[in-house]
């Protein structure tokens, strides 16, 4: 019942969220899940719950599962190339097992 798939996680600022989601869809992913958060990295700390005077600089964690690892890698690379020179963010992938492989 379980089959191999690839999970990709993208952590980016809300500012570029819509554009990143577009890249994910264009890259062939059939879905994604997004949770709001906070974080710290090279570009400084971002808080979660406090009044975010600048909403667009808070963090979202986007994950999507794809059956085809190469397609997933291609999306990850595309996002990294397009944005990560100038905008904060990270991306990583890992192997997972899914039920209903045709969904991904």
């Amino acid at each position, binding site marked *: 019942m379980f089959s191999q798939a690839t999970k990709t996680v993208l952590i980016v600022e809300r500012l570029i969220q819509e554009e990143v989601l577009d890249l994910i869809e264009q890259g062939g992913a059939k879905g994604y899940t997004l949770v709001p958060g906070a974080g710290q990295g090279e570009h400084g700390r971002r808080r979660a*719950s406090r*009044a*975010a*005077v*600048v*909403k667009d600089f808070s963090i979202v964690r986007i994950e999507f599962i794809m059956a085809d690892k190469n397609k997933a890698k291609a999306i990850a690379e595309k996002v990294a190339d397009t944005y990560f020179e100038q*905008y904060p963010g990270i991306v990583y992938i890992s192997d997972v097992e899914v039920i209903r492989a045709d969904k991904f």
Partner: protein
Amino acid sequence: MFLEVFTLDLLAEFGASFLSQLQSPTLAFLIGGMLLAALGSKLTVPDAIYQFIIFVLLMRIGLHGGMEIKDADLTALALPALMASLTGIICVVVGWLTLARLPGVKFDDAIATSGLFGAVSASTLAAALVVMEQESVSYEAWAPALYPFMDIPALVLAIVLASMAMQKAKGGDRKKVGVWKIIKDSLRGSALSALLLGIAIGLFAEPGRVYEEFYNPLFRGFLSILLLIMGMEAYSRLAELRGVAHWFAVYALLAPIVHGLIGFGLGYVAHLLVGFSQGGVVILAIIAASNSDISGPPTLRAGIPSANPASFIGSSTSIGTPIAIAVCIPLFIALGNAVFP
């Protein structure tokens, strides 16, 4: 001799106004917020409340403006609006000629900072309106609507300057700056959207009762909380400034006052030419002194991605906004009282 008397008068007036401001809750909440952050208080205002407060404040300002300008002569708005735009542009140019040329200052950071300080803060505008009402300084109902006329040109110019510089550096083919996109982005920001929505509803509908029963009574209270948030933000972003050239702090200290004077001057010209009111001139000066805190930062971030947000947000939130609220509001009200008969 005359000038001297005038200056003394102004100083006395400013001193009195400033002292009364210190007593006024406006400033007390700002300072209270700083103190809370400095003392490590866990008190925070949830993000949802902050968004709601901004919405209600800007709707209140918009509704009021919209209802009042129904039978106003809007041609009178033309020249002050032009002056507002000019102010926004001149402020950015000033930053470009000074801050951007200082040693150790990255060009893109400087231009983004200038754009932010050339643009307008809705919170400072709201605070100014409350203080002016208290001190019975009256203004044209549409004066708060000058906001976008100053805000947008400043942001557009900053982004255009930055991208021209980048093209020069890189040589190669000229990538066009999407001016229209910047304008749309600004107008779509939550603060300006609420302001414009309020104006539209005030103009076309009859929101008198909901204004009197809801938006107006909440105004002062919500402003007090907004100032508390601003104070907490100011303190907690001070740390970010450390990694940045000291010039940004110096700029953030002086720019509000210089920009306010530019706005006051151009407003005064409008007064002489078309009778722009004392209160209107003061509003123009204060929004010039303010720096954008809601829609400016993301617009600049998207438009000048190479700029380090710590430089422009740190200096504006930690220094620019407190100076605008604590110093410039009383200063330009006092200046208005001194200059106008």
